[in-house]
């Protein structure tokens, strides 16, 4: 398994690099806790004025927030740093150093950068999901749990594919860092179940930017909202996204000319 070996190598390098900035860990942990507190306070303010939000009860919205944290933690830990690095390399022409290595280029650009402190968000997110399940009253069934795990895995794959496609655009447009900014603000919408948005926005968040499949579906799966059909669609979209990302990457790569190298 070359991918696993490469991942392990770059993870080690990433950890060693970040250990030089240990103060960032405390700031990051503090920031994550504060941002979780803001999210919880937001929910508290909402539920001080309403009992349910578009049919979602408080503990279900808590699960949405938890899944949101887990997914955004994974994205910012592993996917986003790699994509940012890639954009910079395309602009500066330093992608040459990746292409000349004897490994698959997409695998290499996907694993070579990470920000370990961001894992704090994943840990907090898991804790929030656990708390949401514990306070829901009912016990978590085997189907709900399996549906949750499957849809969460599919969510990560979908977002990875989606971000690779966005980043690959930099072969044409050179300066696309801000595309990640759009993604982030679109993704912010995932803090709330997509059901609350008006139809046009819901369609955007389902098909254009896969927020619905990334957050709402896994969180809903915990309270039995995911039918087998939804689950199948979620997995299918993940597969399509990853395959499409790889194809698109290979097309984009042909345009790369190492401009300023």
């Amino acid at each position, binding site marked *: 398994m070359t991918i696993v070996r490469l991942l392990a190598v770059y993870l080690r390098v990433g950890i060693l690099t970040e250990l030089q900035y240990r103060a960032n860990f405390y700031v990051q942990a503090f920031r994550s806790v504060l941002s979780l507190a803001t999210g919880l306070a937001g929910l508290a303010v909402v539920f001080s004025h309403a009992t349910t939000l578009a049919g979602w009860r408080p503990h279900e919205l808590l699960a949405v927030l938890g899944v949101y944290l887990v997914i955004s933690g994974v994205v910012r830990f592993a996917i986003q740093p790699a994509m940012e690095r890639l954009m910079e390399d395309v602009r500066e022409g330093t992608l040459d150093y990746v292409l000349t290595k004897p490994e698959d280029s997409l695998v290499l650009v996907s694993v070579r950068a990470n920000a370990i402190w961001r894992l704090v968000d994943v840990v907090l997110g898991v804790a929030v999901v656990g708390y949401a399940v514990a306070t829901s009253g009912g016990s978590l069934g085997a189907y709900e749990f399996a549906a949750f795990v499957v849809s969460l895995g599919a969510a990560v794959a979908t977002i990875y594919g989606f971000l690779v496609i966005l980043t690959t655009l930099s072969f044409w447009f050179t300066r696309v860092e801000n595309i990640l900014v759009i993604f982030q*603000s*679109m993704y*912010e919408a995932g803090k709330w179940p997509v059901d609350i948005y008006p139809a046009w926005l819901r369609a955007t968040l389902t098909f254009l930017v896969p927020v619905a499949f990334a957050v709402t579906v896994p969180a809903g799966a915990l309270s039995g909202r995911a039918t087998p059909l939804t689950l199948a669609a979620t997995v299918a979209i993940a597969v399509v996204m990853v395959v499409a990302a790889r194809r698109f990457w290979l097309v984009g790569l042909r345009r790369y000319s190492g401009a300023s190298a």
Partner: protein
Amino acid sequence: MIDWISIYRAQFAVTFGAQLQYRASLAIWLLGLVLAPVISLVVWTTVAASGGGQAGGFSQGEFAAYFLALLVANHLTFTWVAWDFEFRVRNGSLSGQLLRPVDPIHANIADNVTYKVITLLAVVPATAVLAWAFEPAADTSWLNLVLFLPVVALAATLRFLVEYSLAMAAFWTTRVFAINDLYYVPLFFFSGQLVPLALLPDWVRAVGNLLPFRWMLSFPVEVAIGRVAPSEVPIGVACQLAWIGAFLVVRSMAWRHGVRRYSAVGA
């Protein structure tokens, strides 16, 4: 005597050209800016709808008006100086600017103003489309709308100075991303981006009144939608001016001490 007019004219020409180079990223950045208030708008109109048409004294139309005004005010007041400054300290490109006889802050001001002017051409129609989609309604007056202009200008000045002061931390820590993130949490909360400050519990509002965040964003929004009467505006303006004064001092002290520590890390 420094000729500020020609300095700024030159700066504007440079930044104008630079900004127009990247029209696509301007459009993208704008989309991001529009989306965040739309999310809050939807959440709160949903809450108001389930609460019989209103929540915390805001009707659905008023929530729409509030968050659309917030969108415009946030656009006019936001800055990216912290990222920009950290980048220049880290890769050493600040060195070149230090050789010039003008404080680099003026380049940032020109950059910021140019960007706002260019993007306003898109923010205004975007807001109009959203207004058509979400039907805002507010009990406001022409005087309130006129007062919005000087108040939002002061808010933008204050936010710029606060974020510029914060950016100075780059001189000491080199990497300030984490500090920035830390700053955005209370900003989001106390500047009314999460929810109108009127909907927060009293004790939270009391804490917020001791901080500068309300005056950086929420206050002009409250003025625009008529939640602050024209007769109450001078008190708010006085608070804005006081904070601006304080941060002018902080910024220049941080700059003077920080620049001595600057060692052009990556140059």
